[in-house]
């Protein structure tokens, strides 16, 4: 295979596989947060920002994969 095709394949694989973990993790965070809000609706003001922050942290492995994919593609 030529280099360009390999690069495209590598970038696709990197971001595709790298997105799996954070997707599951964020789903877990969101479901737990919804559960907590459902149990105690008054605490939603406190739960929502914490949920966003933990989601952003969970997302970081996905973002690493994305950075790798972008580096493979554009440099």
């Amino acid at each position, binding site marked *: 295979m030529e280099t360009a095709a390999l690069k495209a394949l590598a970038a696709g694989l990197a971001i595709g596989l790298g997105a799996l973990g954070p997707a599951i993790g964020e789903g877990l965070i969101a479901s737990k947060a919804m559960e907590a809000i459902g149990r105690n609706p008054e605490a939603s003001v406190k739960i929502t920002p914490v949920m966003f922050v933990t989601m952003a942290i969970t*997302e970081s492995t996905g973002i690493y994969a994305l950075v790798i994919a*972008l580096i493979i593609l554009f*440099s």
Partner: protein
Amino acid sequence: MQLNISIAPEIIFYIKSFPVTNSLIWSVFISGFLILITLIIRFSLKMVPGRLQNCAEILVEESFNFVRSVTGDEERAKKIFPLFCTLFIFILAANLFTFIPGQAAINIKSQAGTISIFRAVMADYGTVLVLTIISVIIIQVAAIMTHGPLGYIGKFLNFQSPLKFFLGLMDIVGEMAKVLSLSFRLFGNIFAGEVLGMVMLSLFPFIAPLPFMFLGVLTAIVQAFVFATLTLVFITLASEIEEDELVEQASI
């Protein structure tokens, strides 16, 4: 489909041999803008606050309360707060300036082709890396100040047992990883937002990019908050004396 995407920022002109990139111009512009706003608020302070002063007061007060709730200590909160608030406001402003409509259309032509004068500041890895290095150095300084130089080195080189020695080595790796994880998180999010917006615009330029723009605004705010908060949490952790250490100190 020809997209103009580059990971390095574009060089606009040189001062002697120092390359001035578009992200550097914008970070200087944003710093100037923030300093101007601060000076305006500083010299028009009133007992009965106006609109601008009210916003500034809410921002400073709420973020100070947040810092105090994380550190759990008024004195330490006062020490950490300026760094936290500066990081937060600068990154927030740098991210939100991306959404000024029309700025991406300002171009100049040079040998390298058409270059946009504007570039999202946090989509330049150099800037993000410098911010990260500043916060990581401050984390180490906080650790040294609480544990003392010997205690700080002893945390990493521990010869009490093979397990502790191994854990100490892992701590060294962990400190190194902080630089990468903090900087990649911010850079990746903002750069990915830019690339995503560009790709969507080139695929379908009318309504399709809107939800991604909304996601971008959300990311801009959340990432600024996350970067500042993580720095805050790391400093707090580094400047806390652990319980077994207290026992050790008491026994000495």
